[in-house]
């Protein structure tokens, strides 16, 4: 009882703490979850991880749309004979307690037959009987224990995604063949003239041939396809020499065993393909719980409440909303279409769209844009457009969203591959012509031997291992990359463009300052009391920061929507609100949100709400400006220009009043002079993020929402951005060094090949040796480079 941390969620308990069962809880919600768990024998939840829970934030009507069987059917994975299977995304899943309690859901309701958590994807698959249970009840149950699933338009009608497991199969085939061929080829490495071997070597060799067939035909097919595609578009990528090497290995070995010339290189062949596939597999590390392809669909709701002409409410699918429909938007619901406010007090939070956290008050008759979130009461609106034609969703019609950034980019490996292929082919031809003149019987032997030994296995492995490793290191420090290709593009960045609101500023806190005459104690007390009565978001945040005063009884309280509040107690009166409302001549300053105060009909002053800039920005810009040219693009007006100049007294160009399309075009123009990185956060940056070479989405909470991008950066570590760029450049250096290293191995091998002495056993030793030493080198090098970064980070904090 000494600790004042909530037993369930770990938040500190203020004076509102709830005591129950000798434990302390921060609120009724947490206590209720504890009660549910303890009465059902699930207390072990708290033994696994202390305070793992979350306060349930459950709104009774939120899931009413799950009464609509059409919508439910679209969400279900399986629905037959009284059994339903659903796969839900639960962002809160974060520890072993979560897995345990969610996999024991049948304790909470017997209709749940089984539930299985996929931790990396933060999803749960629940199988339940429909006779006494519905999907809605299940979702409500999950929400009540604090695991509220997010059901968005993205889930709608999504057929079970086909998982591509071909790489695992190929890896399995190659590994299986590699192991067996190794065993079968082992005897011939040593005693070639032995009686036993002479008798059975034909069997052994044809068995090896049989094992390598599926490897060449199935496991290696990606390399052939890629090489063919490269050649057709007149590009010599790294897969060309690899494919050549594989073919040379296979045909030379087959000819060898057919004419009894030797044991062939089947061991090298299968080993080569196995190692290459391991490299591919390593590179494929993805953050399954993050999505880099999100568009508006992943955070728009599935259904919305429509008001029928008869006045009845019904839940309809969002795509069925037509212009002219009357919709009901409740507290915390997203506005799905551009619409006009008819009834009610709207407070719209556009933070998903612009990054601006301060809610905007709207009156009946005002237009609302899709993507805003209603805070406060229920409002009635009239849809003016359909979902796909709304202001924000139209942006996704732009062709940049279907553009593939990878296809237009030549990777460092491919750039090397070009020169490499030419070099290998010329060496092979020169060596073969020499032998044709000197000893024609050996010419074919030498030609294939050069192709075999020069097969750039180690080069092809250098990039996947370096970049894959670096990607994991980035992830550890709060920067999640979509794939390794992003890292290569990052190394070439010449320009960095920042969004302002939500990216450079943090939406978590805004600073409030008071300017004007000091308030008398009675006035201050009255101010606090009056604010308490209002539900306006500005009133709420102002109320939070004001000092404690005795709460008085108000004699009179009036709230004029969109204007302000008036409170009267005893002989005092106070007016809080817009400049006009409190009666001041002061010029309205649009650059910042302010709340004006007048007491007893005399103007006192105003509270100004300012965005807080993230800490460490000057340092970030100082280090960045040596590496790239910097720009700031903002959708807001230029009221913050001076503050920004003071904060960042460097050569940073700033542009204000930029619409989403303007940002996109601006990036396009910058790209004429080099690679551009865009750092943004809201949906309004989505176009610019897609257009830029590296789109970085800044997120306060990486699990919640971010627009389509190449990398997701935790907002708290934005100051590390220049280090990440530095690391990306260093990785390229590491790759180049490992190219040199593998070239040494190639030279040794070429000596044997050109002089016609390449024995299978030499190939079998040299090839894995070079691959393994490259993997070891890149792993050690990336970790050393990264350790320097971590040390500087630790020094800072």
């Amino acid at each position: 009882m000494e600790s004042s941390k909530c037993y369930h969620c770990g938040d500190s308990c203020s004076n509102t703490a709830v005591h129950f069962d000798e434990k302390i809880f921060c609120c009724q919600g947490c206590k209720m979850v504890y009660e549910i768990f303890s009465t059902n024998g699930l207390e072990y939840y708290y033994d696994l991880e202390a305070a793992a829970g979350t306060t349930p934030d459950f709104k009774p009507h939120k899931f009413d749309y799950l009464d609509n069987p059409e919508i439910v059917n679209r969400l279900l994975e399986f629905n037959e004979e009284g059994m339903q299977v659903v796969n839900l995304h639960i962002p809160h899943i974060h520890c072993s307690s979560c897995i345990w309690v969610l996999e024991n859901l049948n304790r909470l309701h017997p209709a749940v037959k089984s539930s299985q958590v996929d931790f990396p994807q933060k999803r749960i698959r629940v199988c339940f009987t429909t006779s006494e249970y519905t999907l809605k009840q299940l979702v409500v149950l999950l929400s009540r224990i604090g695991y509220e699933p997010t059901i968005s338009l993205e889930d709608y009608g999504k057929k079970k995604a086909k998982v591509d497991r071909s790489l695992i199969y190929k890896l399995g085939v190659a590994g299986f063949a590699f192991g067996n061929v190794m065993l079968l080829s082992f005897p011939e490495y040593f005693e070639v003239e032995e009686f036993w071997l002479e008798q059975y070597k034909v069997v052994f060799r044809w068995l090896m041939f049989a094992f390598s067939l599926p490897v060449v035909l199935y496991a290696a097919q990606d390399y052939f396809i890629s090489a063919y595609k490269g050649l057709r578009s007149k590009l010599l990528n790294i897969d060309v020499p690899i494919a050549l090497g594989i073919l040379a290995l296979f045909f030379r070995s087959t000819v060898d065993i057919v004419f009894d010339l030797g044991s062939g290189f089947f061991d090298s062949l299968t080993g080569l393909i196995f190692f290459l596939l391991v490299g591919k597999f390593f590179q494929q590390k993805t953050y399954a719980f993050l999505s880099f392809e999100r568009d508006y669909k992943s955070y728009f709701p599935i259904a919305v409440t429509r008001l029928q002409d008869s006045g009845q409410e019904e839940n309809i699918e969002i795509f069925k909303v037509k212009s002219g429909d009357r919709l009901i938007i409740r507290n915390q619901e997203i506005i799905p279409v551009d619409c006009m406010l008819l009834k009610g007090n709207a407070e719209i939070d556009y933070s998903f769209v612009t990054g601006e956290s301060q809610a905007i008050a709207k009156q009946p008759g005002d237009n609302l844009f899709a993507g805003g979130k209603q805070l406060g009461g229920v409002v009635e609106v009239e849809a003016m457009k359909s979902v796909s034609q709304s202001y924000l969703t139209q942006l996704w019609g732009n062709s940049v969203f279907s553009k593939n950034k990878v296809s237009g980019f030549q990777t460092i490996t491919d750039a090397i591959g070009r020169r490499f292929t030419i070099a290998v082919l010329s060496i092979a031809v020169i060596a073969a012509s020499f032998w044709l003149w000197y000893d024609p019987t050996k010419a074919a032997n030498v030609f294939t031997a050069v192709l075999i030994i020069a097969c750039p296995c180690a080069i092809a492995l250098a990039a996947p291992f370096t970049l894959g490793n670096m990607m994991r290191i980035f992830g550890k420090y709060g920067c999640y990359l979509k794939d390794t290709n992003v890292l290569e593009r990052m190394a070439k960045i010449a320009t960095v463009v920042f969004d302002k609101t939500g990216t450079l500023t943090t939406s978590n806190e805004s600073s409030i300052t008071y300017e004007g005459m000091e308030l008398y104690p009675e006035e201050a007390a009255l101010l606090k009391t009056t604010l308490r009565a209002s539900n306006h978001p500005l009133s709420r945040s102002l109320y939070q920061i004001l000092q404690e005063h005795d709460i008085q009884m108000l004699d009179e309280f009036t709230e004029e929507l969109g204007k302000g509040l008036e409170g009267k107690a005893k002989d005092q009166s106070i007016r809080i609100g817009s400049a006009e409302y409190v009666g001041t001549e002061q010029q309205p300053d649009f650059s910042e949100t302010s709340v004006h105060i007048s007491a007893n009909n005399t103007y006192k002053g105003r509270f100004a709400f300012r965005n807080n800039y993230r800490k460490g920005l000057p340092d970030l810009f100082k280090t960045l400006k040596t590496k790239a040219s910097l720009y700031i693009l903002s959708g807001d007006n230029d009221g913050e220009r001076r503050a920004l100049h003071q904060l960042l007294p460097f050569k940073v160009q700033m542009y204000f009043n930029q619409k989403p399309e303007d940002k996109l075009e601006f990036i396009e123009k910058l790209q004429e002079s080099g690679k551009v990185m865009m750092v943004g956060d809201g949906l309004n940056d989505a176009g610019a993020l897609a257009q830029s070479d590296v789109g970085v989405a800044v997120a306060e909470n990486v699990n919640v929402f971010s627009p389509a991008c190449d990398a997701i950066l935790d907002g708290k570590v934005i100051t590390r951005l220049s280090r990440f760029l530095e690391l990306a450049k260093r990785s390229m250096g590491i790759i180049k060094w490992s190219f040199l290293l593998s070239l040494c191995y190639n030279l040794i091998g070429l000596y044997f090949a050109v002089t016609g002495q390449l024995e299978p056993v030499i190939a079998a030793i040299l090839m894995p040796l070079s691959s393994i030493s490259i993997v070891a080198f890149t792993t050690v090098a990336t970790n050393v480079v990264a350790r320097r970064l971590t040390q500087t980070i630790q020094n800072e904090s």
Partner: protein
Amino acid sequence: MSVIYVLLAISISVAIVFFIAFVVSVRQGQYDDAYTPSVRMLFEDELVDESSEKNNQNRSQTE
């Protein structure tokens, strides 16, 4: 017929059995989520049986 053929046949068929087992397990999706099972195997029968039976009637509350 030499014994070496028998041995080869046995060793290869054992290898193929394992290979088929691998393919089947991939097909069933056992490789899709490589993390959760590692946590799941550490859970034992921590469920308190008596208390849940005692409180069976309370279950209706949780619906």
